[in-house]
């Protein structure tokens, strides 16, 4: 419904007409992911990742529900119930490996989706709420993944719960009280395990609801595109179906091949062997490491080693949460009128430096807390904050963007060696983001 030329739903059969008059659900689907949603004609494969993230969540919910039919959330039997799934339940090994690696697939595609948004300015007006809801989804995902990781009740599960709930004890005065309340005890035990199971079951559905809002908010202005230039007319768009259903379907096929490779050939590659040791409250593993998708944040957490006004522990926790909360402010930290980094030569360099910085943080977060890694973590964490709080605001004000194409269609035709149908020459720099 974002543009006046959007196709209108016309029921093909008497039955669908009858349903549509009473509950316009087919119409809703048609307008959301069917021919009723006009999409810029020039999207590249980076625009596949939203759909892939949705597919990954759907896979997690399906496999999660069936795993919950066999899992027992009790400290005495949780670990054994997971082994029962692996050994006794029909296709249980497949379901558990699909669920464990599905979490990784979900985070991989979501990280690409986030960096896509960062690169093409998808967080800028008029899509700020799309971005904010996306950050909410990301936070919910992190909470869900953490709680799910606790459930097998292995060593990493247990000590992960110990460490993560320890964040809350950093809060001045009431911290310890909050941590005891969260755990329902003084250390992770049955009470914590049961509530984590309950919430781990609930939150994915909350995520699904926020995704609905995310897509709803997206469909008001319509999708962004690689040029960042607004849609100017019907020639700039194609109907979502069949064009992007086909393209997304192809991308989904590639995604499933990689997913299947992980499940069938490297099911434990991304896991930690210590989680095959049953939880032992009296012995800590040599290195407590979260799953790979939390490594950059873990590095930021560990980068703070000395007290400065506030205790180091509190600094680490504040910085870690701050690194995500920062993303909420991104639409207002970047004041450039140009959306796509393709036309921002200076920012483009800093964007890729940020990508490298996050990868470095990830590497440090996955390594033991030895002096060399800590120093690199400190530099990389400082740069991360500098990027958003210093570099981005300055660069977005001082850089001179490259001239934007007059329209999406013009950009497409220029790229493919055609001429613009409107015969307009490439005019000078167009700095207004319409």
């Amino acid at each position, binding site marked *: 419904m974002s543009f006046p030329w959007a196709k209108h739903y016309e029921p093909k059969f008497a039955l669908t007409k009858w349903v549509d008059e009473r509950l316009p659900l087919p119409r809703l689907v048609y307008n959301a992911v069917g021919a009723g949603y006009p999409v810029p004609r020039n999207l590249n494969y980076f625009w596949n990742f939203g759909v892939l993230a949705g597919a990954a969540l759907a896979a997690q919910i*399906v496999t999660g529900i*069936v795993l919950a*039919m*066999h899992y027992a959330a009790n400290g005495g039997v949780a670990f054994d119930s997971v082994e*029962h799934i692996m*050994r*006794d*339940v*029909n*296709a*249980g090994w*497949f*379901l558990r490996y699909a669920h464990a690696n599905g979490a990784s697939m979900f985070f991989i595609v979501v990280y690409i989706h986030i960096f896509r948004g960062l690169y093409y300015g998808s967080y800028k007006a008029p899509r700020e709420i799309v971005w904010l809801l996306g950050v909410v989804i990301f936070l919910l995902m992190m909470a869900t993944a953490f709680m799910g990781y606790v459930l097998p009740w292995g060593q990493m599960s247990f000590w992960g719960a110990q460490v993560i709930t320890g964040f809350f004890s950093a809060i001045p005065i009431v911290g310890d009280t909050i941590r005891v309340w969260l755990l329902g005890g003084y250390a992770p035990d049955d009470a914590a395990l049961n509530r984590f199971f309950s919430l781990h079951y609930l939150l994915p559905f909350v995520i699904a609801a926020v995704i609905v809002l995310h897509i709803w908010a997206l469909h008001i202005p319509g999708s962004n595109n690689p040029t960042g230039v607004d849609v100017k007319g*019907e*020639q700039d768009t*194609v*109907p979502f179906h*069949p064009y992007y259903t086909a393209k997304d*379907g192809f991308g989904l096929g590639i995604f499933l091949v990689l997913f299947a490779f992980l499940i069938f050939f490297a099911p434990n590659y991304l896991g930690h062997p210590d989680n095959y040791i049953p939880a032992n409250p009296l012995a800590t593993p040599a290195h407590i490491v979260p799953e790979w998708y939390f490594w950059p944040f873990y590095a930021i957490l560990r980068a703070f080693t000395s007290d400065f006004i506030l205790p180091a522990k509190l600094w680490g926790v504040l910085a870690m949460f701050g690194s995500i909360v920062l993303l909420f402010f991104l639409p207002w930290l970047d004041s450039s009128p140009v959306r796509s980094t393709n036309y921002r030569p200076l920012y483009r360099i800093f964007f890729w430096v940020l990508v490298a910085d996050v990868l470095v943080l990830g590497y440090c977060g996955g390594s033991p807390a030895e002096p060399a890694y800590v120093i690199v973590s400190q530099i990389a964490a400082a740069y991360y904050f500098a990027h958003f709080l210093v570099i981005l605001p300055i660069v977005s004000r001082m850089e001179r963007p490259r001239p934007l194409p007059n329209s999406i*269609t013009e950009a497409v035709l220029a790229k493919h060696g055609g001429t613009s*149908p*409107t015969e307009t020459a490439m005019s000078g720099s167009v700095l207004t983001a319409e």
Partner: protein
Amino acid sequence: MATVDNAVPPGEDPAPFHEAVDDPRRRDFINIAAVAWAGVGGAIVVLPLINQMSPSADVLALSTTEVDLSKIEAGQGVVTSFRKQPLFVRHLTPKEIAEADAVPLGELRDPQTLADRTKPGKTNWLITLGVCTHLGCIPLGIHEGENRGQFGGYFCPCHGSQYDTAARIRKGPAPKNLAVPPYTFSSDTTVTVG
């Protein structure tokens, strides 16, 4: 590039955009093939999601039970467990066997002789599930002193089903005789059920 829904750019000569189109088009075939193949893939993925609800290996491993008969006197019975359900093992007295054999088959709701429901030469060993075929309650009568109903077999107090000494339904709502599980005599005094 010409598309099916063909948005000819405004101001363009539409002629080059109109190509001869076969019916059915090659693209129709590709569409149908792709969707069909995706359907096959989807169906295959659904199989493990359904099969995970079938009995797991540890449940199936419990599906045989050994019963020692040497301690059970005639007139007595024991309850043991087979597949997590009560299993009635009853040592019939000659009088109970005679009572069961005296019943004409025509009178029975679920016609079976005692011989049908026991092993040859072992008609004194009546081994059945203790699960009423009406709604699955556990009938009384396996232990001495319990109400065995008017036919001397089992009596299910919940809805009043009455079984005779061959554990055949004689009165009340149950449709079938108490089920006889598969079993073999692994020795004269040992039965392997399942």
